[in-house]
C-alpha cells in the first residue's frame, strides 16, 4: 500500500490534476471566446490591477468590512499554498526523487502553518453551519470538498507529531494528498486557478469599460 501510495498514485494524481485543469482552462477560454462581450474588452492593465487589489491583504473594501474573516482567510490560503511546496518532508522527497534542492520551511514554522490551516478550515466548516446565508446555499458536497481540502493537512499534522500509527497515517496523508490534487479540476477547488480569470474579466469590465474600481 505504501509503495502504491508513494508511487503510481502520485503519478495518477499529478496527471489527473494537470490534464484536468488544462482541459478545464482550454475549454473555458474556447467557450468564452465565443462571447463577444468578454475577450475584446479585456486589458492586461485592468486585469492585473484587479488581481493585485484582491491578492493584497485588505486591498478591497469587501475584505476591510470583515477584518477577522479576511485575516483568517488570507492566512489559510497563504499557508495552504506554501506548505505543500515548502515543508521539509516534501523537500526531502523532491531531492530523493529528482535530485532537486529546494528551500524549505523550518519544521516549527511549518507546524504552526499547518495548525493555521486546520483551525481556519474548522472555522469555515462551522461558519457553513452557523451562518444562515452560507448554510442556505451549502450542500453536503460543499462539506465534502472542504474536508478534501483539509485532509492532507490534518494527516500531515498527525504524522509530523507521530501520533497514532505513523505508517498508516503517512499512507493516509499520501492518499488524501492525491485526492486533494485530483479534486481540484472537478470541484470548486478550481477557484485556485479560475480566480485569476474571473477577476481579470471583472477588472477589465469595471476598469476598461466602465471606468470604475472593483475593489
Amino acid at each position, binding site marked *: 500500500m505504501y509503495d502504491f501510495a508513494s508511487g503510481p498514485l502520485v503519478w495518477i494524481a499529478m496527471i489527473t490534476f494537470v490534464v484536468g485543469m488544462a482541459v478545464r482552462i482550454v475549454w473555458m477560454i474556447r467557450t468564452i471566446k465565443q462571447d463577444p462581450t468578454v475577450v475584446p474588452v479585456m486589458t492586461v492593465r485592468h486585469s492585473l490591477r484587479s488581481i493585485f487589489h484582491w491578492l493584497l491583504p485588505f486591498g478591497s473594501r469587501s475584505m476591510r468590512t470583515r477584518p477577522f474573516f479576511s485575516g483568517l482567510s488570507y492566512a489559510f490560503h497563504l499557508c495552504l499554498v506554501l506548505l505543500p511546496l515548502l515543508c521539509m518532508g516534501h523537500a526531502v522527497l523532491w531531492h530523493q526523487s529528482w535530485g532537486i534542492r529546494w528551500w524549505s520551511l523550518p519544521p516549527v514554522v511549518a507546524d504552526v502553518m499547518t495548525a493555521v490551516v486546520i483551525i481556519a478550515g474548522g472555522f469555515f466548516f462551522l461558519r457553513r453551519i452557523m451562518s444562515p446565508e452560507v*448554510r442556505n446555499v451549502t450542500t453536503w458536497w460543499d462539506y465534502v470538498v472542504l474536508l478534501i481540502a483539509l485532509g492532507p493537512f490534518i494527516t500531515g499534522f498527525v504524522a509530523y507529531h507521530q501520533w497514532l500509527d505513523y505508517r498508516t497515517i503517512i499512507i493516509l496523508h499520501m492518499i488524501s494528498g492525491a485526492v486533494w490534487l485530483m479534486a481540484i479540476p472537478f470541484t470548486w477547488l*478550481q477557484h485556485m486557478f479560475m*480566480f485569476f480569470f474571473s477577476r481579470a474579466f471583472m477588472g477589465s469590465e469595471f476598469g476598461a469599460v466602465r471606468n470604475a474600481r472593483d475593489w
Partner: protein
Amino acid sequence: MADLADMQVVDAGLEAAVASLTPDRIERVVTSVLSGAVAGRLKLYLQTCVHCGLCADACHTYVSRNRDPDFAPVAKVQDTLAVMLKKKGRVSAEFMKNAARIAFIECGGCRRCSMYCPFGIDIATMIMTVRRICSLLGMVPQYIQDTTNSHSATSNQMWVQADDWIDTLMWQEEDAQLEVNGLRIPLDKEGAEFLYSVIAPEPKVMAQLIANMAVVMTVAEVDWTMPSGDGWDNSNMAMFSGDLEIMGRIEREHWERALELRVGSVVMGECGHAYRGAVYDGPKWLGWQGPPLPMVHAVEFYYDLLREGRIEITDKLTEPVTIQDPCNIVRGRGLHDKLRYVVHALCDNVVEMDPRNEHNYCCAAGGGVINCGPPWKLARLKSIKIKAEQLKRTGAGLCITPCHNCHHGVEDVIGHYNIDMHTSFIIELIVKQMKMPAGA
C-alpha cells in the same frame, strides 16, 4: 425563506405565462439560452463559486429584508439559473414564475455584489440571463412588458405619439422663453455640436426638465439640437425586460438619428439606464465595438460647462444636501468625482451618504424594478430599508438624484419611510442658481 406576501402578488403577465407554458417549451428556451454565447462565463462562474456568502451583505435586498438568506445574491442564482442548468431546462412553469419574481423584483442588476465577491463573479449577468429566458417565455411582469411593447410600437417607452412629442417641445420652448428671450429648441439642426437626448418620462410627465435644459443650453451658448422624429428616446426598458431584439432596435434607431443629423456628440439627460443602454448594452448586442459617437452624460456635461465657465453659479444652497450615486453612471461609469464637483458648485453643505461612490446602495428602482409597476411596489420598498437608513443618517433635507430611476426610487423611499426630505435633479438647481444673461 422568501416573503410570502411577495409570493402571493398577482401579476397578470406572470399568471398568463403560467397558464400557457409547457415543459417542452421551457426546456427548449432554457437550453437555447444556456448553450449560447454566455455559456462559457456561466459555467465558469457556477463552477468557481464556493458558496461563501460574502456577496450577501453587499445586496440592499438582503440587508433590508432582515438578512433573510433567500435574498442573498448567491441564493438568487442557486434558486434560478443553477437549477435550470442542473435540470437541463426541465423545470415547471411555476418554477419559472418564481424565478421571474427573483430576477425582476428582488434584483435590479446593480452589480454591487460583484464588488464584494472575491472572484468578481458577475452575478448581475446571471440574473439578466434569467430575465432573458423569462422574456423568451413571455414570463415578464405586465407593466414592464407594456413599456417594451410601447418601445416596439412607438419607439419610446410611454406611448408618446409623434405629434405629442413635437407639441411638447414647442410648449416647453414657449415656457423657457419666459426665462430667456428668444430662446429656441432647435429641431433637426444638422451638424450641431450636441444632440440632446431625453427619456420618455420627460415629455410625458416631467416636461419642465426639457425647458430647464433649453435654458442652460441657451445661456451657455451651446450649439445643440433635438430630433423631431423617432429615436429621441433611448430609455431602454427592453434591456431590462430581456427583449434584447427590441433593445438593439431602440439603440440602433437612436444612434442612426444622431448620425443622420451629423452631430458631434450626444448629451444624455439625467438618466442612468438610458446611458448604459446607449453606451454598453446596445452596442454590444449590435456587434459594435462601442457607440458610434461619443455620449456625454448630463453630469459630465454640467461639469464641463462649469469648468469652462460657460455657466456661472451665483446663488448656492446652504441647507444640507446629500447625493445619491446612480449605479449606471457611478459603478457603471466612474462619474462620482465629477458629480461631486457639480454638486459642490451648487451647494455649500454637502453631507455624504455612507457608503458612497461605487459602493453606494442602489435605489432599488433601477434595473427595471420600478417599471414592474404597482403590484410590486410594496415588495420594492421592503427591499430598500437600507436606503431609508442611509438617507436618515445624513440629516439632509434634499437628496440630489441625477437619474430618473433614482429620483423616483428615492422619492418613494422618502414617502414610505416618512423621511423629511425631497429629491431634485441637478438641472432644477442649476436653472434656479445660475447667472442669467442681462435682459433675460
